[in-house]
């Protein structure tokens, strides 16, 4: 994100502006926050792109910090051990995901291997257990579609930022890193509306859109594997979404914060209030009340050492009772 370069209509690349860099840094502060759930509140003259940029940063940093956490690996291996021989799985071969059948484990300790046979070519592959993420249990609900090899599209922006191997894992795994409560149509416009370059060099054409990084479920490119969910601030979360445990919830606008902030009590919160919207006032009152009852700690909290641009307000605090 630090190097992301939005273009302009004249095809001139401009560096991410100061406010955008600050939003990304605030998001980073939540990714590395320790202890109690933290709220960062921002007020901006227009809330455009703030939530999308923050979500991209959160997903990217979470993937860097926890590409596949050991606990996840253990859980995944345990799930594979529970499979019957012959169970359908999928294996990664370069940039393709191919259907296969699981045949079992051999050896033990660090030499333990998994045996998987490709369904089309019947070739037997052996994977060390530490590479278990190369093997996925097939999605039974996908039916016939799952039995066909498919090419996985790894956006060049992701490949540039995460490297080839990790990019494949990034786009073929699901984890709820971020949940955005806002206006779906507006967010989608932002996720796809702007081309981001990784370099200011005009000869470097590597680019992509925010959705490549945010991976919002249901939006193009993230129908099956995703990292972010969108919740309408008007209708709120359904029972299923309300029961999720996202790492961070971004409230894109005051209305969602006022109505749904009680959901996901253990998540960090990034609240973006648009100072031009009437809802900002009420949301600011609510946040001030939360701030007044915050946990004791250093006043600047998660935003310590960050220079706040003159166009926005920012507060950070650990929530009491969360």
């Amino acid at each position, binding site marked *: 994100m630090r190097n992301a370069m939005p273009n302009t209509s004249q095809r001139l690349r401009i560096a991410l502006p*100061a406010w955008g860099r600050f939003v990304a840094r605030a998001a980073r502060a939540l990714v590395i926050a320790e202890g109690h759930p933290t709220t960062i509140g921002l007020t901006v003259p227009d809330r455009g792109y703030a939530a999308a940029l923050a979500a991209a940063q959160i997903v990217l940093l979470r993937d860097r910090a926890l590409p596949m956490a050991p606990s996840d690996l253990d859980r995944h291996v345990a799930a594979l051990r529970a499979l019957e021989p012959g169970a359908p799985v999928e294996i990664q071969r370069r940039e393709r995901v191919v259907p296969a059948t699981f045949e079992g484990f051999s050896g033990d300790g660090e030499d333990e291997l998994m045996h998987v046979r490709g369904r089309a070519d019947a070739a037997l592959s052996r994977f060390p257990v530490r590479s278990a993420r190369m093997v996925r249990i097939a999605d039974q609900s996908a039916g016939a579609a799952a039995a066909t090899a498919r090419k996985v599209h790894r956006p060049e922006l992701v490949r540039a930022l995460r490297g080839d191997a990790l990019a494949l894992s990034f786009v073929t795994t699901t984890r709820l890193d971020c949940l955005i409560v806002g206006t779906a149509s507006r967010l989608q416009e932002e996720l796809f509306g702007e081309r981001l370059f990784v370099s200011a060099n005009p000869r470097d054409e590597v680019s992509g859109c925010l959705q490549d990084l945010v991976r919002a479920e249901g939006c193009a490119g993230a129908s099956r594997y995703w990292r972010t969910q969108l919740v309408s601030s008007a209708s709120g979360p359904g029972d299923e979404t309300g029961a999720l445990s996202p790492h961070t919830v971004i409230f894109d606008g005051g209305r969602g914060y006022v109505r749904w902030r009680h959901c996901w009590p253990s998540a960090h919160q990034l609240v973006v209030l*648009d100072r031009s*919207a*009437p809802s*900002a006032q009420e949301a600011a009152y609510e946040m001030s009340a939360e701030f007044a009852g915050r946990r004791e700690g250093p*006043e600047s909290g998660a935003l310590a050492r960050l220079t*706040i641009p*003159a166009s*926005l*307000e920012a507060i950070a605090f650990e929530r009491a009772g969360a």
Partner: protein
Amino acid sequence: MLARVSALHDLASDWSAERRLVEHAGVETYSAAVSALLKGLGEQADEDYWAELLRPLRRLRWLLATTPVPIGDATCEVAETLQAVVRDLRLVRDQAPGLARPAAQAAEAMAGLGDSQDDPLGDALRGLQLTGTVALLLPDNHAAARARATAALEGAEVVTPRELLRGQYGTVVAFGPTAWFPEPVLRAPRARRLVFLYYGWIRDREPQLELLTGNQAPVHNGLVPEPPRSARLVPELPDPEEHCSPEEWIPQIDWAAVLRAASSRGEQGVMDPVHARLFVLACGDGLYLEERDGTKAYVADIDEGEVAVRQEAVSALTQGSFVVTRTAGEGDYIRELADRELGKRARHLRELQAGWKRKLRDLVEARGARAIAYRLQAAGSQRADESNVRRWASAEGIRTAHESDFDAICSVIGEPDPGRLWQAMGELDKAHKRAGQLVRRLLLEEIAQADHAELLKLGWADFDVEEIDGEGALRVSRIAGKAPELTAVARTQLRTLFPLEAGTWQE
């Protein structure tokens, strides 16, 4: 789009705003006379007699401060106002001798202003020597409409605060002190330069730019402190510090007059009146909504660029909410839609509904709600109390929430087959719910396709939803005011728009 957002952040980082004070002896004399009348009357100013006199005087003061045209122009309505109040102003010497002087001053000042070709606000505007894209900002829709209709301002972009926040300009010239505009005008500036033009005797306030308690760095504040007046053209007038707070100028709804006008159209001596809240809408209509027992109304939420139509408790409706009503025909369009869906069966079900309601209402009228509540409790109802009994007997509502209460009612009114009636009312209830969902969906589609700008500009818009035919369109209108107290009105007056006489509220 990212470039636009960045440009707005840039504006927010280095905007500047200045206040330019405008002087005019005649307007100041008139304003001082009105202020003296208000101050002299104190709380009596709210009494009907004085309110009737003061309303046009205050309105003229507002027009003079927000209409950048020559004072004698018909748009300012000086001559019209003088004609309307001159007799009453003369009578002040008899009604309140202590106020005879300001009353005479007001009349005299108006007589002078009526012929005046002076254009203090227009001159100040021209003196700014503006370049680039310029927007003229007026405090409300009415003032903006007047400015747009003014030939002298032809070609200028006239905006209200809501419209301003959707655009971006080089310079914004606002007519009035900062206190007359909502905070977002300065909290989210849409121009690098803002100029507030207003009369020198109005005292502005310092706006509260910060929203967050505990904000870790001050947000940019480019507002220059209010300058001192260069000269007082009428030094003998009292010190404006004492009487010219900016809020005093802003048009207020005269609720006594509005309620009086509203009640004059109602049915007199109605049986079983309901207590309802009167709302004044931006479209100029009034609307009564029952407030008790969590009654809900449809509202359109158009904040934050998204349109949402949802139900909101009437008690929670506030000034600025957009309420959905119907322009003609029965206010209850949900009932009509439900009936259409039920087809021929609707008539039978409505007869059943009216039947048990009528029997219960007859009993309540004959014995009183409290006595009937006791009888219902004895018959097994757990929720029967005076308030619920009245609600159950009212024409609204289809059946009780719990079957045990309904059984008790059937037992008391002598209904032979409670189970069958409960089921029939359930059918009606489901049709109502489906109709509600349909209206919500259709309206949402219609509003989403429509131009929000018009709705925001005028404060109201009509939507002809094809599927909801019959009389009248659905009207979405901003609530301009909410009556401070409930009024007893006939049930038939609920949820039906009615025009408010022009002038019963100031704008």
